[in-house]
């Protein structure tokens, strides 16, 4: 098992390097001189030249990338052009907000979406099935930020049940989480339904039924257990989407997270901040996918047996 986990962690390194190289290259295209931006319009040419030298801006692109990554490994991602403070500090205060939003969103969509998918599959072509598929269709087509606005309008501004701005306590998380959950719930319902439908047709289900197992036992022990594996994968894939959704939703609910940080930094051309923010989110997503893969290996006896055998 350890071998498998080790292998997966090693596989992450080239991916992270690739991501960072692509983002670094894209951001290197940004027009304008950072030294000029930091020093302002009235700075003298010598000052600018000196700062460029200090910042290493006169070096070749590849050398700059290697230096950036060498610093990044030591958790030094540079200073913000705007505040001159290390960008890591600001990111670390904001990342948890975005992360918990995405996490609550996914959690909620699993808790509600998976049971709906199961019932839909078990009662295929029933009214429940039709209605839930219809709902799933509408849910995939709703932009999260618009749904957020509508929920904000009804439940915060009109009914006053939840705060309209910020996250001072747990009530602030309710509306954004629901907003995010609805987007990924559609995929949960559809995936659970289709994998359940596949599993239901398997021979071992007929065997279980013919030996007299009760319907509830068949669903819980034979169908759901096998259908869960693809669902776990979907959770992993969805997490990336959820982080993206959370970043957009933050603007709606005025939550200080990675999304609002990136948007203001992009507007202010604060390149180190954008670079580090994108990198942190991308790495966070890769880590979650790594975790999902490891969980998968524990849950799926086929993968587990492969590695247990070789390690013995």
């Amino acid at each position, binding site marked *: 098992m350890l071998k498998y986990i080790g292998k997966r962690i090693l596989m992450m390194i080239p991916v992270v390097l690739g991501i960072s190289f692509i983002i670094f290259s*894209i951001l290197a295209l940004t027009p304008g001189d950072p030294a000029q931006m930091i020093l302002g319009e009235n700075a003298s040419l010598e000052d600018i030249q000196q700062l460029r030298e200090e910042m290493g801006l006169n070096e070749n692109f590849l050398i700059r990338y290697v230096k950036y990554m060498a610093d990044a490994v030591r958790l030094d991602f540079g200073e913000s052009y705007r505040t001159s403070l290390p960008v890591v500090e600001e990111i670390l205060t904001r990342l948890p907000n975005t992360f918990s939003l995405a996490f609550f969103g996914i959690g909620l969509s699993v808790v509600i979406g998976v049971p709906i998918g199961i019932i839909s599959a078990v009662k295929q072509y029933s009214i429940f099935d039709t209605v839930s598929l219809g709902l799933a269709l509408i849910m995939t087509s709703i932009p999260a*930020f618009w749904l957020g606005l509508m929920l904000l309008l009804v439940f915060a501004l009109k009914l006053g049940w939840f705060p309209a701005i910020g996250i001072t306590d747990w009530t602030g998380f309710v509306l954004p989480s629901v907003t995010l959950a609805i987007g990924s719930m559609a995929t949960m319902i559809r995936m659970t339904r289709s994998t359940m439908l596949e599993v239901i047709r398997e021979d071992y289900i007929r065997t279980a039924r013919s030996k007299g197992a009760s319907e509830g036992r068949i669903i819980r022990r034979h169908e759901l257990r096998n259908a869960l594996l693809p669902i776990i994968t979907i959770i992993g894939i969805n997490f990336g989407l959820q982080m993206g959704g959370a970043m*957009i939703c933050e603007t709606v609910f005025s939550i200080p997270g990675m999304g609002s940080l990136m948007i203001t930094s992009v507007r202010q051309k604060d390149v180190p901040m954008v670079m580090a923010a994108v990198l942190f989110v991308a790495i966070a997503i890769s880590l979650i996918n790594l975790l999902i893969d490891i969980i998968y290996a524990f849950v799926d006896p086929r993968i587990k047996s492969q590695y247990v055998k070789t390690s013995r």
Partner: protein
Amino acid sequence: MKNPKVENKAGAVAVSTKKNSQLAAIMKRYMKNKLAVFGLILFLLLVVLAVGADLFADYEADAITQNMQNRLQPPSAEHLFGTDQYGRDVFARVLFGGRISLWVGTATILISLAGGALIGATAGYYGGKIDNVLMRIMDVFLAIPSILLAISIVAALGNGMMNLMIALSVSSVPRFARIVRSSILTVKGQEFIEAARAYGCRNGKIIVYHILPNAIGPIIVQATLSMASTILMISSLSFVGLGLPSAIPEWGSMLSEAKEFMRYEPYLITFPGIAIVLAVMAFNLIGDGLRDALDPKLRN
């Protein structure tokens, strides 16, 4: 010299009749799917309203020019969806917004399709090292969530329609590349490719005339589904101010402007939002319908 040509012609005719009957069968299967037909109707409606927007409203007078004495009017016979904080007609802006979304979306899909087809075809056809390198690069692009990629590109290039198209295309190129590559791998070994090569076709010609037509089904499905997600992305990015400049009537930027008035003028955020939902839904339904119609095995 005459014989091969005649044979070639006869072969082409035979292929085209077969194609037609296949197309008819696909159409028939598609039309049986009620949701897919609903999607098609929504799509046609969207195209008619967006292309014919000038018939219903005047771009300059209704959607752009500010008209302060008319500001924040609720929906009425004169202003179907009301007016915004600058007195512009929301109905007109929603219509022209549809034109923008369709145009930016289509252009984005075409750019990413061209890029993806080039990369995918090269990788699949030549295989080996080229394939490995190209596809690993695509994998890395796929590992970056499209919103992050788009934000970084907008950060580097700045706002604007062209930059938005580039940003969105870059993030969907890998998906097309993968599809084209896998389609090529499935047809690569077949006899008609050997035949074309024996006949003296050059690699580029074989890819364009013999291989790509066989990959067209999955490509169209992916293009339709990508169109749905691209429309969502256009409006999301414009909503947070990283997409189109706010002067251009676009659904996302309309919502962003309407945000501060939504408490007392809820219609301002209602209609552009519904427009996005319907447009995205149309493409999702068509994409799902086409996928089922093209591959009847998938349906259960």
